[in-house]
Each structure stands twice: as C-alpha cells, then as structure tokens.
C-alpha cells in the first residue's frame, strides 16, 4: 500500500501550504476587519462601457 503513504504525503504538503497561507493571512492583517469586506462587495462602480 505504498500509495497510501504517497497520498498522505501529498495531502499533508497541500495542507501545510494552506496552513502557511492561513498564517500569512492572519499575520498580514487580512482578518483584522471581519465585517466591512462583506458590505464593500455590494458597492459597484458605475458601468461606463462594455468591451
């Protein structure tokens, strides 16, 4: 069952990558404000032209 260890290894690498992303997000202040982003998406610029 070598594939089990391969899959666990791959999945752990992916998970660690996401963990790093999570730590970056927290430390860089991405989550300091956990309310306004949800309101900000509701405002769109006026559409001037299509291309």
């Amino acid at each position, binding site marked *: 069952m070598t*594939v*089990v260890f391969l*899959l666990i290894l791959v999945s752990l690498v*992916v998970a660690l990558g996401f963990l790093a992303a999570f730590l970056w997000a927290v430390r860089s202040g991405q989550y300091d404000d956990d*309310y306004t982003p*949800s309101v900000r998406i*509701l405002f769109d610029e006026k559409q*001037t032209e*299509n291309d």
Partner: protein
Amino acid sequence: MAQVEKFHYDNAIVRNFAYATMIWGLVGMLVGLIIALQLIFPQLNLGIAEVSYGRLRPLHTNAVIFAFVGNGIFTGVYYSLQRLLKARMFSKVLSNFHFWGWQAIIVAAALTLPLGLTSLHEYAELEWPIDLAIALVWIGFGINMFGTILKRRENHLYVAIWFYIATWVTVTVLHVGNNLELPVSAFKSYPVFAGVQDALIQWWYGHNAVAFFLTTPYLGLMYYFLPKAANRPVYSYKLSIIHFWALIFIYIWAGPHHLLYTSLPDWAQSLGTVFSVMLIAPSWGGMLNGLLTLRGAWDRVRQDPILKFMVVAVTAYGMSTFEGPMLSLKSVNAISHFTDWTIGHVHIGALGWNGFLTFGMLYWLIPRLFSTKLYSEKLANTHFWIGTLGIMFYAIPLYWAGWTQSLMWKEFTPDGFLKYGNFLETVTQILPMYAMRVVGGTYIWPEISLWYTIWSRRSAPARSLATKQPKRLHWLARMACTKANTGTAGWKEGLFKCFYLRP
C-alpha cells in the same frame, strides 16, 4: 491633485464563458436524458457502439461537470474576481487561451469518449494527450488568476477568492495525481498503480473532484452572488472565513469512504468515514450562512426568481452534505452501495446545488452584462418551478429504486439461498422508477429561457406593445392577438407576447 484612476473590467470573457455554460449545459443534460431513456428502452442504442450507454455515460458526466459547471465556474470567477480585486484580468491573451483551450478540450472529450478512448478512471476518463492539454490550460488559468491577485487595488482578499485559490491549487494536485499514467500509444495509457492502490488514488481524486470542482468554487460564487442578488451582506463574514478554513483542511481526507467494504485497509476506511462526518460542521455552517443572509428578505424570495434559485441551491447543498456523511457510515453504506440511491444523491448536488446556483447566477449576470433588464420574470419563475419539479421527479424515484434494489439483493429464502439470484429481477422491478426519472428530464428544457433572455434584448422596443393587453384574454382572442402581432419579428414573437407575457 490626485488623479482619479480609470480602468475597465473585461466583460467579454465573462460573456463568452456564460454562452459556453449555456450551450454545454444543454448538451450535457440532453446526453443524460438519452442514457436515462436507454435504461428503459435499450433498443435506443440503435445497435451502434458509439452511442451505447457505456460510451455515452462518461460523456454525460464529463459534459455536465467540466463543461457545464466548469464554464459556470469560470463565468462567475472572471466576473467576481475583477470586481473583488478592483483590477482587470492579468492577461487578455491568457483569458482567451483559457476560454478556447477549455472549449477545445470539451470537443476533444465529446469525440474521444464515444469512440471508446478512455483511461477508465471515473470522471477522469480522458486519455493522456487531453490530460496534458487540461494541465496546460489550467496552468494558464492559474497564472491569470494569481497575476490578477498580485496587481489588485484592494488589499483584502474576500472569502470567495480564497475558495477560488483552493480550487485551483487542489484541482492541480488531483489532476496530476490521478493521471499518472504510462502512454503506450497515441490514445492509450495505463495508470502507474494497480488494484486497490489504483482504486484509492481514483477515489481520492473522485471525491475531491466533487469537493474542489463542484463545491469550493461554487461556495465562492455563493458568497459573491447571493449577497449581490439579495443586496445585503452575508449573514456572518466571520463564519464564512471559518467555513473556508475548516472545509479545506478536512475535505481532502474523506475519499476512502468510496471504498468501504473493499480490500482497502480498515483504518483507511474508518479515517474516510470520520472525516466525512466531521465535514457536516463546516458544510452546514456555510449553508446556514447562505440562508441566513436572506433574513428579513424572505418576502423578496417569494417574488424574485433569482433568489428562489439560490435558496433551493443552498438548501440542496445542505441536503447533500448531510446525506453524504450519512452514506459514508458503514451501516448506511451497506444499504446504499451499488444501488441507485447514490445516483439520486449526486443529482441532488448536481441539479440542485450546481445547476440552480448557475441558473440564479446567470439570470442575475446576463442583464448586467448586456446592460438591460430581465426580459420576463415570469419566464424565469416558470424555469424555476419546472426545474424544481424536475429535481423531485429525478431524485425521489431513484431513492425508491435504490432501497428496492438493496432490499431485493439481501432477501433470502428460508433455506438460505438468495431469493432474487438473477440480477435481471431487480432491474425489471425498478423500471417504473427509471421511467419517472426520465420525466425528471424536464429539468433541461426551461434552460432555453436563458437563451431567450439574451436573444430578446434585441427586440426590446417591441416589448411595450405587449403591456397594452388586457389581463385575461380568451384563447381565441389570444390567437387573434398573435396574428396581429406577427410582424417583422415573426410568429414566435407574437405567440410569445399573447400567450405568455404578463400584461
């Protein structure tokens, strides 16, 4: 004096993906209807191998997953990413490469699968040259997305973007992992693993394809388009962040639940079950977050077809993410495995969650992309109701069929022999359920109303005529009205105005 910066979003690419979603949606579902009919009338094979069930079934699954839902993802991502980051897509060339490359891959799939060229991995049947093309196009998409993220004008990454990132990263890993194969000729390859090892890598992929192609990108779309359509912020942004991180750390371990009662080591089977059950928490957190976004706006759900589509979609997400963990319990799996219950389960997800969220998104998006109004709310409402009935007619008979199969397979005579030793006996028993499932195929047709919404924007001035009609008309009067209204736009326009439109 500060200068106000001017930039433009690329809407053309969004429009192209929207068209593709609608075309492939129709094609993929029609193939599904054909094979559903073949299960009742096998003679519809016409004796031709290329259009027989075994060849068309992978075509159906690939078409709805990667062509319909895939293009649906890209439509929503290319629209929302630019707006959430306040930046135009990184590269127009890559956007077009992504679009045309993806469509070419779909066409290649539509040609090779009926010809019987398959690598035999479910949902990854395409042969190695096409696998390479998918990898290339996917990397192009990735560069385009991360390039846009890097040049963003908005520092905060909205939760939807995290879902898109997770989708891209994990699908890359899954695609490479499950397609490790040795080519022996231009159109034939063999996987590097065999037996139960191959099965494990296949279901690690198969399960996570559901997780990271049908779920996470659509959750991103939900977190963008549901608040937009409801015009109110998501119920709890905090919860959405927890939803995301909890989901991606748990999801990838649940694959072995597809291999219960096999020669896979017992601990691996149990691991899959444990993680599946744990998944209920983030999944339901997300579902409730979506539904509670509409608190105080339920009166609008009664009117607005877009919100109706989205509410049913999110509810279907909740139902299938509860059902999934239940099916992964060994005791329940003993009933459901190999039966049509599984088919019913995936279609709640596919038709309800993916299909309805796509339709809701498109009904919201198309008028905005074409700077117009929805042609007819009534038409969209009809689409919603026929679609909902379609889901019911699809799922309920298949649940019934699944339990019937399971009960018959496990029925013994007093002497200890199988009561229904001949498999055919269970097949003939569930034919009525199969017939009712075909009725559920009505889900497909109202999709045409989306096309009508686009097509009709050209005849916008003619619309004002329709408003002059009295509220209720006798059908004879409507016939006369049709005749009178058959002008330059043709009889269809007249028919539509006089028989369909709400005055």
